């Protein structure tokens, strides 16, 4: 019997069964009562009457269980205490209003279902890509409008973005670039020493940091730092209906929210890349000096010979493209947020992953392009 005080007694008398419900029929005992009543319904005991005279207390869940049982075994409720009549009546009305058996989805593993899921995912990715492309168009149109009407620009917002996404990112970008320079120099020296060509560590360092690592590391840090901030900021504004308010006030969210972030990042990411290049080379140079005894004058001389005028620019030229991707994906994610806290988190994660993915794809594209151009 139910441990917490709700139970029923069974009396059999001449062909009919009488169930006397007793105790506190409340949600506390619902789990146990539910089991017993289900067993009872399965046993199909013929004609049943349920006597409620012995119930001490009843709540909506208790009333629901009684009514459900009475319904499933076709029993009648008798001897209802006065105090519970209205409650039972009210719950009965509510029970009648809802479908008898709520549909339950059975989760079985099926190849068909798996394929279905896969197809859904593919279409979702395509839909996302289309939306992003449409957003790209919106940005271009807005940018065009800003060129025609420069008075619509927002210099204060732009400066604040430069401060938050450029200046404030200097320490972390510098530190990581420095470490990368150190690691490249150290690992490269180890390998090149086998040929007695330690001096070429400088070439390796210069080309890898300037052409690839400087701009990639910077872009990835900024994607994690600023891209996520864009999505979360704009997303929180969406949750708060601020974006809707803007639109109603005749302000274009793309112009007010997206353009300052985009232009800010277009300016600050190349500068950060330049900074990362410089610090990365410096870190590598320090390592060369300490571990390989390549003194700074020798290092600079070798560096000068290793570089052609384009090497630096081939790295930095990628930065504005990366900046565009980060700002576009980040802001788009923010504007896509629905009115829930979970949605903010989901879109923030998605926009960081997407922008890093797109950065690497773009970088691969640049590699192919530069190879074709023989630079």
């Amino acid at each position, binding site marked *: 019997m139910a441990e917490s005080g709700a139970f029923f007694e069974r009396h059999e008398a001449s062909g009919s069964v009488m169930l006397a419900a007793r105790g506190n029929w*409340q949600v506390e005992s*619902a789990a146990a009562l539910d089991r017993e009543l289900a067993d009872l319904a399965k046993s199909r005991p013929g004609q049943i009457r349920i006597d409620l005279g012995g119930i001490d207390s009843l709540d*909506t*869940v208790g009333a629901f269980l009684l009514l*459900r049982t009475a319904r499933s075994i076709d029993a009648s409720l008798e001897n209802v205490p006065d105090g519970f009549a*209205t409650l039972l009546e009210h719950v009965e009305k*509510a029970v009648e209003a*809802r479908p008898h058996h709520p549909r339950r989805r059975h989760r079985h593993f099926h190849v068909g279902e798996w394929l279905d899921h896969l197809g859904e995912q593919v279409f979702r990715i395509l839909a996302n890509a289309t939306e992003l492309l449409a957003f790209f168009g919106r940005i271009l149109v807005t940018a065009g409008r800003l060129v025609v009407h420069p008075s619509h620009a927002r210099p204060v917002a732009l400066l604040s973005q430069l401060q938050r996404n450029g200046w404030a990112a200097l320490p972390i970008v510098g530190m990581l670039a420095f470490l990368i320079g150190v690691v490249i120099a150290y690992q490269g020296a180890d390998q090149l020493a086998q040929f007695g060509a330690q001096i070429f560590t400088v070439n390796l360092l210069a080309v890898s940091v300037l052409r690839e690592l400087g701009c990639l590391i910077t872009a990835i840090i900024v994607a994690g730092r600023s891209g996520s901030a864009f999505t979360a900021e704009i997303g929180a504004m969406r949750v708060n209906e601020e974006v809707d308010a803007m639109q109603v006030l005749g302000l274009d969210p793309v112009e007010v929210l997206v353009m300052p972030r985009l232009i800010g990042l277009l300016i600050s990411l190349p500068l950060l890349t330049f900074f990362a290049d410089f610090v990365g080379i410096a870190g590598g140079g320090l390592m060369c000096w300490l571990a390989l005894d390549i003194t700074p004058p020798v290092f600079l001389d070798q560096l000068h010979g290793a570089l052609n005028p384009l090497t630096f620019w081939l790295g930095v030229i990628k930065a504005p493209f990366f900046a565009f991707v980060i700002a576009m994906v980040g802001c788009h994610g923010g504007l896509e947020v629905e009115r*829930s806290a979970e949605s903010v988190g989901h879109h923030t994660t998605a926009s960081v992953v997407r922008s890093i993915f797109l950065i690497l794809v773009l970088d691969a594209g640049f590699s192919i392009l530069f190879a074709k151009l023989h630079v």
Partner: protein
Amino acid sequence: MSDARQANGHADGHDDGLLVRVRGLVTKIGGRTIHDGIDLDLRRGEVLGVVGGSGAGKSVLLRTIVGLMTPAAGTIEVFGEQMARLNDRERHKLEARWGVLFQDGALFSSLTVAENIDVPLKEQFDLPHHLLVEIAQLKLSLVGLAPETASLHPSELSGGMRKRAGLARALALDPALLFLDEPTAGLDPISAGDFDHLIGDLKSSLGLTVFMVTHDLDSLVAICDRIAVLIDKRLKIGTIEELMRDPHPWLQSYFHGPRGRAALDGKVA
């Protein structure tokens, strides 16, 4: 009203028919005194409406009683237990016996409506899944929402539906005491009237005692047994007729202004 609750195991330590007893309550926010010596009794089975101007501290009073804010002085007893003396476990047990409906429903945005209703049930009891589904359905139809609402997220609901869903969650544990914070604010007059009706209905069928903060004169007239007015940091409590006779200028303009007259017209002799 039904005595379902009164006849049953919800008997309290020393039962004097008061579910809430507030004595000498003083609350301060940032050094500013909001309430200065408030006494309040909430009798079993009544609906008490709390009114007052904007910023008079109606919501603060509700939040203080349910323990979201700490009073500067005074005692609060709920179900005969002094709130300040309870430890965490006792307070937790007490909280299961009341339901609170916040202004905009305060539904958890990442959960569906059904999951929102199941939150307190899962927290308190170990119920099988199918029963949780059925209970959520039952509560939904008790508050007059369609079964399909169960699988929707709060962002997909209208303001009125959010309030009803919030009420369903507040009712999940079949509380004896219900706190409502402006249940009809932001609803159109018809939905607001329906909501008043719903509260009145649930009160009589489930034997609820209701503490309701409101701005809505229609609600006061329709379902409140007594009215508490927050004026000058203190509380005046009485029936609507008593308060209408009060000479205080705020009360005079509240009940005898154009809106007051429209709401009271023909309902109060």
